[in-house]
């Protein structure tokens, strides 16, 4: 009986990136038991870094060897350049996050488990990046979400960490449930799970205005919106970003958003091309809501982590404009935007982490006074990231914004360009506010005791991570052509 079940051939190479991260996580779990406590931190972080490096290498190889996308493993996985590029971005975030994590003051009890979970979260994301059916979509989503729930709560000595984990668990669980329910409705309407088969069934049976299908589509958008922290599904973001250990926040803000946005693009374009009229408007509305909520709420924040959390909501809004445009330019714009965005996001939280360790308390705008002058690299990095978020030239953030606006205009939505431009203008206030806090105020205003023993310990890994993020942020401005070519090939995996 069992022998008669047809098992699909497995394309191990297509799964190499998640597998290498899974392996790294497994090795780390072993090292939690086998490696002596004193060496555990170094060993675990090196293993996680190697896992991410291997994932990058495999994803790059996959990108090069997959000029045309196709489904593998019974179409459960889509082996294409879109997934490969997303995996590279995610693994890049992961690598930087390992660098940021290294000197985090965390007890050695769970340090190996921390890095194991960090690798597994990345594994789930890289798996999700190439999901080809609603089932693998949900599987991948839960896989990385559960890792992140634990990561948020892992530092029990950190005030608010447990709360953050719990909030993320409850709200994230709600989002997952929405996604699952939506998937069920879509399956009910079409009888298929594969993205392209859904589209085929919809056109074959003329289902494009089927209530079940449309409701399912709406729920799927909502479920992915939770992960991308787009308004109105953003409520968890500020609390979780603030409460979670900062390196985890850094990883989440970059990688989670990247994978959620790419998946939104993939699902909508492959599975629901007939409903484009509906979802383009829905996504544009979500983008506008994110821009409004993120920017307006960020204006009044004093905690830097909360400010960056709201900024990440507004950045999701900008990137959703690319999805809402529903054209090849928009897909390219989203993928390009993700590259500098992830670097800026991880880098900015990395700087926050450094300042936190220095002051041993949460970083507020006030406690940044004089920071830029005292720590030239970190302050300069933060300046670059803020200017990049705000879309100033000489950072990739500018080109990214330019591309998404161009895509919206090409779609015929000049009003969306105007909304984006106005949102950018509003965002300047708080992005430049961070720079103002770092440089324009003398550090005497910093009402804190001077850091004991002069300058803090040199955190070489964190500083290299920030430096790498600076290089990507600025480099992506100059190297637009090669990057956009890569993004174009990746976007060609989708049919517009």
């Amino acid at each position: 009986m069992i022998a008669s079940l047809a098992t699909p051939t497995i394309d191990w190479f297509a799964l190499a990136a998640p597998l290498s991260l899974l392996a790294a996580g497994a090795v780390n779990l072993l090292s939690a038991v086998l490696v002596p406590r004193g060496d555990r931190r170094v060993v675990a972080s090196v293993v996680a870094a190697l896992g991410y490096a291997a994932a990058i290498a495999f994803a790059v190889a996959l990108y090069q060897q997959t000029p045309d996308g196709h489904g593998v493993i019974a179409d459960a996985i889509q082996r294409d350049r879109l997934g490969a590029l997303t995996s590279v971005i995610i693994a890049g975030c992961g690598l930087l996050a390992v660098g940021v994590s290294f000197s985090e003051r965390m007890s050695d009890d769970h340090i190996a488990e921390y890095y194991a979970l960090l690798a597994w979260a990345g594994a789930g994301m890289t798996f999700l990046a190439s999901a080809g059916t609603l089932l693998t979509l949900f599987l991948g989503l839960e896989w990385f979400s559960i890792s992140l729930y634990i990561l948020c709560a892992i530092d029990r000595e950190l005030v608010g960490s447990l709360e953050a984990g719990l909030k993320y668990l409850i709200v994230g669980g709600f989002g997952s449930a929405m996604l699952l329910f939506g998937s069920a409705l879509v399956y009910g309407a079409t009888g298929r799970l594969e993205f392209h088969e859904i589209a085929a069934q919809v056109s074959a049976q003329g289902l494009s205005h089927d209530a079940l299908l449309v409701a399912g589509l709406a729920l799927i958008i909502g479920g992915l919106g939770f992960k991308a922290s787009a308004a109105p599904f953003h409520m968890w973001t500020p609390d979780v970003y603030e409460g979670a250990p900062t390196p985890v926040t850094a990883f989440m803000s970059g990688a989670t958003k990247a994978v959620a946005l790419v998946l939104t693009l993939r699902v909508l374009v492959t599975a629901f091309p007939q409903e484009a009229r509906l979802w383009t408007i829905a996504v544009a509305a979500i983008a506008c809501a994110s821009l409004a909520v993120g920017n307006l709420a960020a204006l009044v924040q004093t905690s830097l982590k909360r400010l960056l959390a709201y900024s990440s909501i507004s950045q999701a809004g900008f990137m959703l404009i690319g999805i809402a445009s529903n054209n090849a330019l928009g897909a390219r714009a989203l993928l390009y935007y993700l590259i500098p965005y992830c670097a800026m996001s991880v880098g900015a939280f990395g700087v926050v982490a450094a300042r936190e360790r220095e002051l041993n308390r949460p970083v507020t705008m006030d406690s940044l006074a004089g920071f830029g002058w005292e720590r030239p690299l970190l302050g300069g990095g933060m300046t670059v990231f803020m200017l990049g978020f705000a879309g100033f030239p000489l950072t990739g953030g500018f080109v990214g914004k330019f591309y998404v606006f161009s895509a919206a205009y090409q779609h015929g939505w000049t009003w969306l360009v105007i909304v984006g431009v106005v949102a950018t203008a509003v965002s300047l206030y708080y992005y430049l506010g961070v720079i103002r806090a770092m440089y324009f105020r003398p550090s005497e205003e910093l009402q804190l005791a001077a850091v004991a023993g002069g300058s803090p310990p040199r955190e070489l890994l964190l500083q290299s991570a920030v430096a790498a993020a600076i290089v990507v942020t600025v480099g992506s401005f100059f190297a637009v052509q090669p990057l956009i070519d890569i993004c174009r090939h990746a976007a060609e995996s989708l049919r517009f």
Partner: protein
Amino acid sequence: MTTALILLPVGGALVVWLLPLRPFAVASTAFLVALAEVALWIDTLARFDFSRPGLQFDEQQSWFSDLHVSYHVGLYGFSLWLVGMSVVVLAAATGYAFWAGRDRPRAYYGLMLLLTGAIVGVFLAQDLLLFYVFWEAMLVPLYFLVGVWGGPGRLRATLLFVIYTMAGSLLMLASIIVLGISQGTFDLVDSGTNSSDWIFLGFVAAFAVKAPLFPLHAWLPETYRESSAEVSAVLSGVVSKLAAFGFLRIAIAKFPGPTADFRTPILVLAACGLVYGSLLAFRAPDLRGVIAYSSLAQMGLITLGLFAVNPLGLNGAVLQMVNHGLISAALFLIAGAVERRAATGELQALGGMARGRPALATVLMTTGVIALAVPGSSAFAGEFAILAGVFTTGWGYAVVGAAAIVFAAMYMLRLISAVLHRSPGRAVTEAALDLRPAELGIIVPLVLCLLVLSAWPAAITERSFPTGNTLTELAGSR
């Protein structure tokens, strides 16, 4: 070669930031780079062929091809003169900072050089997106220069400055996207004219804020007062000219239809700014206020000349742009020198500084007399050409402009007498020195440039638009 004009200061900035130099070495490196930039410009000037129409020394390199954006730089006759004025003013400003001494020199001079590169880049850019890139890149160093090294009210001043300019710039970005995508190229030379009023207004918004054009000048007095003297000199001398350059290069050249449609309101606003700025300059209580508001007035005058849209008006406007750049830079630097001695810029507390300070008196007097457009001065030549140009559009504008020359005399003479003459003010002590040789070495070249231009204004007016029908040429090939 044209690229070198941009790369030299940017490279200088990187050297200053990355090499662990001592403060004196930093400042002198920066000053030398600024001087080298002037030398490079002189070299370009020598090789520039004024008899040939069109873009010269252009260099093009694709940046991203799917949207047809390229790095395209080049020079027209008038942009050459504006670049020259800018590098001279920026060298003077850098030199002044060198002499006055600034805290955190590596950051300061690096930003100053970056600013130089960005400003030159705006004048050279022949691609819409590149133009925007330089335009925005210029704002970043300015934000720091005003916000870190400015006076006590700098936080509010930077906020106003940035919000105003960015609101305008982002509208321009929307216009650039719409124009570039709809034309299929962002190149200024390859693309043709456009007749959309909305796109035109997006550009005008950015330039009108930066110039500033009445009534968008609310950021101006505070920013000019709170910045350090040399940054004010750059802001009022150079940065405002970029806006006028943008009017000419993009708004007028690329949008002949909308320019004709909106000409009257723009001319009226320019005339209002001219009168209003002059009156405020006459009533301003401090040195910087007078110069700041006179700058508003002068930008109104230049805008009048530009939107006359005839050869006389355009030539006059370009000459006046160079004139005013040099004049207001010199005045701001002198104001800085006076403020260093008296610790205040309030006209009430100043006075009687001419006695025993012949150099200061001579320099201020010469600059002031040129600024109030005494016949024979280069400012007179510029203003005359502008008024003659705008006269053909409407005699009313010419009357307002002529009245403004009288106002200019009023506020300039008031400034001169308040600083130099009358009895010594309470802030002026006997110990206050005359201008030092270093200060003279910085300010006198600016005044000399003005004197040369006074003797030979045709150097610019006959060499800005060599072929006459330049607007068709600027409009592009398509």
